[in-house]
């Protein structure tokens, strides 16, 4: 008896191991799947999905089998007799009205239950995150910690994260397929969503409500990490930027210095850069860049703690610690940063950040940047500075 139980336990364990392996393998092929949920909200949804899938498949198979049967059984052959003119059958018709009603009741009850469960108020101990949508990037604020960041969200595993969703301009929708269902960001309203991440990984997030030119380029990343790691991240984000304005860092600083997480393939953006856009200078000087930043028009829109307080574009205080830029569509390295600074509207359709490189044509304003624009060397210096802002 006991041994039977034990063996069954082992079997269950083995099966779980196998299935989690399969899920891991699936993750590689379909990294944004809604079918492999990693939060209680995701699993609640998945339960309903599986139920509707099973019932729907049964109905589908029965209807299509009946159709195929009818097609073959009642095809007209030579000498087929005139069919009897049947006009209906009340019993039959009542039956096939009632059966779907019963099936739907089986879907409706758990649906309503899940609606109320998942839309209840989040636990008061939850991590509070404010999500603010912008055309076309994401601002994330952690009011409990006084941290503001962009396009990259850190969440501790095992702690409920409660999101307050707002938008600065048009409608957006906050969607991390592997973690939760989506919730829209509605102008002049605040929406709420909560879930508890269950495993650590890096997930892709998307804007799921059409929001204009670069709707397709409004992504973000979610890093679900161990609580200790999360605390460390919060600490680093709260501290002033690591860059002291001292030594000259190499432009390719991304690969050196602090350890950035190694990203799985799906989290590395593959967006091609526009043909014909290039920066001649290979390396920049971070100190010169820091100096330039303070004097440039960057400060009108961007914040760097202790340096500037612009709030139109993403907060750049720790931009060097992020893995991606521009709504997670380009990797955060010197090459992409330089191209971005030189001509953002060419890098991202409709970009609100103007082209800054001297002589660049800004497709958004339809004007060419005059002599006051940045030289390639200045651009390289700025990029070096930004990458040094860990």
């Amino acid at each position: 008896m006991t041994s039977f139980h034990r063996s069954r336990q082992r079997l269950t364990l083995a099966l779980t191991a196998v299935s989690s392996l399969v899920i891991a393998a699936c993750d590689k092929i379909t990294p944004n799947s809604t079918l492999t949920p990693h939060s209680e909200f995701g699993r609640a949804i998945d339960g309903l999905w599986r139920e509707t899938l099973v019932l729907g498949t049964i109905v589908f198979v029965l209807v299509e089998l009946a159709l195929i049967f009818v097609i073959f059984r009642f095809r007209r052959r030579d000498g087929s007799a005139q069919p009897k003119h049947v006009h209906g059958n009340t019993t039959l018709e009542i039956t096939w009205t009632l059966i779907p009603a019963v099936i739907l009741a089986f879907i409706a009850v758990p649906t309503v239950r899940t609606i109320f469960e998942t839309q209840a108020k989040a636990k008061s101990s939850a991590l509070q995150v404010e999500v603010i949508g912008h055309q076309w990037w994401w601002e994330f604020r952690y009011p409990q910690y006084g941290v503001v960041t962009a396009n990259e969200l850190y969440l501790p595993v095992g702690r409920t994260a409660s999101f307050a969703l707002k938008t600065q301009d048009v409608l957006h929708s906050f969607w991390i397929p592997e973690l939760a269902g989506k919730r829209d960001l509605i102008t002049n309203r605040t929406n709420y969503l909560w879930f508890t991440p269950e495993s650590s990984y890096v997930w892709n997030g998307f804007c799921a409500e059409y929001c204009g030119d670069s709707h397709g380029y409004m992504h973000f990343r979610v890093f679900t990490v161990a609580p200790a790691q999360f605390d460390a991240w919060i600490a680093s984000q709260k501290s002033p930027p690591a860059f002291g304005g001292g030594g000259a860092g190499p432009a390719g600083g991304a690969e050196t210095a602090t350890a950035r997480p190694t990203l799985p393939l799906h989290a590395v953006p593959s967006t091609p850069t526009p043909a014909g856009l290039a920066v001649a200078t290979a390396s920049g000087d971070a100190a010169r860049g820091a100096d330039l930043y303070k004097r440039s028009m960057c400060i009108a829109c961007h914040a760097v703690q202790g340096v500037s307080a612009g709030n139109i574009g993403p907060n750049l205080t720790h931009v060097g610690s992020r893995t991606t830029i521009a709504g997670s569509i380009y990797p955060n390295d010197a090459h992409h940063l330089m191209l971005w600074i030189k001509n953002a509207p060419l890098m991202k359709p409709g970009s609100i950040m103007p082209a800054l490189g001297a002589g660049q044509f800004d497709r958004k304003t339809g004007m060419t940047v005059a002599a006051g624009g940045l030289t390639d060397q200045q651009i390289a210096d700025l990029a070096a500075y930004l990458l040094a802002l860990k």
Partner: protein
Amino acid sequence: MATTVAPPRHAPAPPKYERGVWSWLATVDHKKIGQLYLYSALGFFLIGGIEALIIRAQLYGPDGRLVSAETYNMLFTMHGTTMIFMVVMPLSAAFFNYLVPLQVGARDVAFPRLNAFSYWVFISGSLFMNVSWFIHAAPNGGWFGYAPLTTRAYSPGVNIDFWLIGLQILGVSSLAAGFNFIVTIVNMRAPGMHLMRMPIFTWAAFITQFLIVLAFPIITVAVTFLMLDRFFGTNFYTVAAGADPLLWQHLFWLFGHPEVYILILPAFGLVSEVLPTFSRKPLFGYPVMVYSIILIAFLGFGVWAHHMFAVGMGPIADSIFSITTMLIAIPTGVKIFNWLGTMWGGSLRFTTAMLFAIGLVGLFTIGGISGIMHSSVPADLQQTDSYFIVAHFHYVLFGGSMMGLFAGIYYYFPKITGRMLSEELGKAHFWITFVGMNLTFFPMHFLGLHGMPRRISSYNANQGWDLDNHIATIGAFILAFGTLFFVVNMIRSRRSGAIAGNDPWGAPSIEWSLPSPPPDYNYATLPQITSRYPLWDRKAPHLTAEVPHSARGDKQSTIRVAGSAVATAEYGTDLQDDLAVVSFPSAHELGIPMPTPTIKPLLASLGLSVAFSGLIYREKELELIAKMQPATHHVSIAIMLLGGAIFVTALYNWLLTPLEPEH
């Protein structure tokens, strides 16, 4: 088993009223207007299809760069708007126009000139919206045009102006036609045609018109608010002034969901005509089919917020709309089962029309089942705005509406033109379309479940979406290839198809008692209707003996039609003189007063478009003034006044001209 009528001795000459360009521009004949709708809508079907092909080519692989994001956004907006307002609705309108008067035994619609006006307004609205392509300013806010993106603050160009003005114009057309058909069906049914004896397509048309006249005013209001915001500085949707963007969403979907049924019910009606004919059996459960149409239409007004489950309406609203959405599945399911019941025990003949009709039954089922999946709110939070939804509504709109409309085209083409469409080309069209459509749309279910959002102009590599996108794109091109067979078939068969005769299919309803194409006056003497299947009663009374024939106020009388008796292809009795098809007496000889052709409805619609063009030009002027470039205020206002003058003059003249010549 070829069962067409023996070829007549002479090909039928086109009737006199069908010759020359002028006869088309000035026509008030519902049959010609129906054909205008048919061919215009098929033209837009090709345009919308090309837009879809560009979209699919762009998405074939990751990081597609065939078109820019801006162009892509115009393409998907116009693809949706075109397919809904310029293809499926006018194709349905083609059948309303052509069939409703024939099926109810009338000589024309109640208001023939208003009918012409509807068509010309439809074509000017459609052309108006598409002209925007030539200045690369096509609408780019999505077919749903969510505020505040479509407000001036976020969409300053003329793109959205083209969309909302075009939509306003198209709405005028639908509303005018809607009232026209309601009056026609209520007032102009032949003696003996009780409501429960109406052909099922006419029922579908009837209910659809109610949906139109109740739903279109809502979108008109929504769009008028937006127009006032954009042109006159009101604040219905101005978020900076505190507007609630959900106002637009509620108004839009309160129209938008009934619109879904406006798109599908006519196709259901056509399929309900085709299946009984080729099963040689009456429609199974006719009363239930009628009630389910009415119930679907009624419930269709109570489910709109299921398009908005992600906007955060709260658990109570979510639950209510979830349950109403599930309820609407019941009458829809009943229709599927009753179609199966119609075919069960029948003697099925697989013409192209029948294949498309069966295609609807099989494919719409898939769209219906995925629809139930989104009715479960939490599950929908994963599905909404993902490719899963794209898959769902293409199964409904292509697998449902288009399949049904194709069935209708293959079925009624012989009546409309007097010639048969080629069955060989038709079957090639069906099978390639069937394969192409499933290859295109089925993988989209997986794309959505694997996290691909809708309306994105490109996607990164390594997201797990490459293979399904490859398949979908290949499928789309197969679909396009299948459509070529259809185009060739239409063009060739119109000229040289086999002669159809009155009743090539052995159909039960009275339009098949008329010559093909019917004379301009349709029925020389009004038919007397004694049952739901008058032609079957006449051709095979022994079979229909068990049909419930309520004789409420009826005198048993035969159906008499000018110049020809009933053609009976399948029943082998009573074959008429084929020559009757060639020469039937003119309306004048029979002393039937016919409405005079007139160009005034066309002119009135032209005036409408000119006036609205002035509004667009006004935008251009303001833009120039803002940029301090030379511009004048007067040109746009002059254009608007000119358009208004044309409209008023045409309308005034129209009202003063009697409908029929003095007699």
